[in-house]
């Protein structure tokens, strides 16, 4: 992943820009993953392999919930205000 943590804005020089830039972070692009991946039927639309008796259609889509939680948690942790 080519994403790196954004530079902390220097409060002295970017006073006005800092509040505007608060929402902007390259980490936010990660949010696209749990939006796009669950909407690709090629991945989940099938019966095998079964896991604990669940066809792939069901277990994989339930697993996507973890993908969503992990991504939003990561983005939140990486972009939250320090201090």
């Amino acid at each position, binding site marked *: 992943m080519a994403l790196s943590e954004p530079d902390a804005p220097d409060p002295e020089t970017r006073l006005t820009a800092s*509040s*505007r830039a*608060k*929402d902007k972070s390259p980490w*936010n692009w990660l*949010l*696209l*993953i*749990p*939006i796009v991946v*669950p*909407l*690709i*039927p090629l991945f989940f*639309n*099938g*019966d095998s392999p*079964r896991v*604990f*008796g*669940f*066809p792939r*259609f*069901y277990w994989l*889509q*339930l697993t*996507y*919930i973890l*993908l*969503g*939680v992990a*991504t*939003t*948690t990561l*983005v*939140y942790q990486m972009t*939250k205000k320090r201090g």
Partner: protein
Amino acid sequence: MWRDHLTEIIVFTLLFLLVSGMGFVAARWRAPKDMAHLDEWGLGGRNFGGWITWFLVGGDLYTAYTFVAVPALMFGAGAAGFFAVPYTIVIYPLVFLVLCRLWSVSHRHGFVTPADFVRNRFDSPVLALLIAITGIVATMPYIALQLVGIEAVLKTMGVTGESALARHLPIIVAFAILAAYTYQSGLRAPALIAFVKDTLIYIVILVAVLWLPQKLGGWGAIFDAADAKFQASPNPNDGITLNANNQLQYITLAFGSALALFLYPHSITGVLASRNRDVIKRNMSALPAYSLLLGLIALLGFMAIAAGVTPLPGNSPGSVDSNTVVPVLFDQQFPDWFAGVAYAAIGIGALVPAAIMSIAAANLFTRNIYKEYLRRDATAAQEANVSKITSLVVKLGAVACIVFLDPQFSIDLQLIGGVIILQTLPAVALGLYTRWFHKGALIAGWAAGMGLGMWMLYQVSSPTRKHFGGSAFPLEKFGFDTPKTIYVGIIAVLVNLAVAVLLTLMLRAAKVHDDGDGTTPDDYFADEGDPRVTPGRTRDADAAPEPVA
């Protein structure tokens, strides 16, 4: 016969009375000095922390109707009903940043409804009125559907009657109680009750998914039983996986529903009631716990197939009420007292969203119709009062819908509701990011999306109905040579956007004046503690600490 279900009825009634009591006491929970303000009655003081917001928004989005209708869909059609899972996965990353902007601008300006924001952003009372009316129309049938959820439970317990009035009496009583405590306590009532509701639901589902598969021969056997049923059925579009023709419908329905969810006024009410941006962001990570719950609930539909459940007959002779699938499954498989708990979970599960939805609809009426057009100089206390009364009217309307009209009518309206609320996307969601759109173009786009959406829904037929047979629009009606179907809402909102973009370009080129904007770029990042954030009138009264967070 109701006598066979006496234990269930007693447990159900006791739990129902317990939460009703909580609803009335809620007025004193985190009590403000002055309740006569929409920020208090309608948004619970705008001061809910992480846990309360989680229960409130979770209880709001995942309604009783969802818990009854999704497994019913799985029971009837199989995999297609599972769209609710990807729908509730993509929703949170999708709105993660959007809702924070909405929260910030709303707190700075004291907005209570999405139409308040549009009014200010585009300086257009007309556009705001359209957004408000769309919201109210989309919400009303949703409230009525919560009653369908309770009725499915009551019917299974044998609480039913010959005449329409006898059949609906329990519902009328339940809604009268709900109306009374919502009137008194406002958003605090559903926020407090949501704790009980969700705890009950989590317990019931946990027991169901751990215990029922053992009784039914394991998960593998459950899916095999469902597979066998759909193999035998003549319908080509059912099955435990999707086929080539309904995949597009599946993903567009999931995505379109996700786009629509946080445009519903009641979802926004829950978000605006939170204390700060952090609460929202953390909830976007925590709310998917409900999606897991919903996925497991959906699978109850397959368990019902494996258990050989037959749904109870519907109101008209010869029809079946597929919404009774899960209640009947519980009745067959659980001991009576636990089935009673499960029914109470569904019944109470209907009350939370019904209360929030009626509050949201009432706020829209008060802020964007009453104050805008009827009484410009209304005081905060008058606003709160109008909202309280309107919430009663809204609930009365919902009950009337169920008692006097075929419940199918509410289901149709709800289907339409999802499509029409999506038409507010350009003004509300995109409006949070850009003021580029011309207000006239947004109005025209809205009208185009609404018109096209209604026409498409009218064209959809099902095996039992000629029109309004669902939201899966056959692409062959557009002249494509394909049996594939697509979700109506997606097409309608794309056309809406196209019209809005083209007209904006034309109006801007023609130099038609439109540059009013009551917000500044900085408004969209304001957070708790910002000197210009509307001060909570009640912060000093907030003696009760948060449970966590």
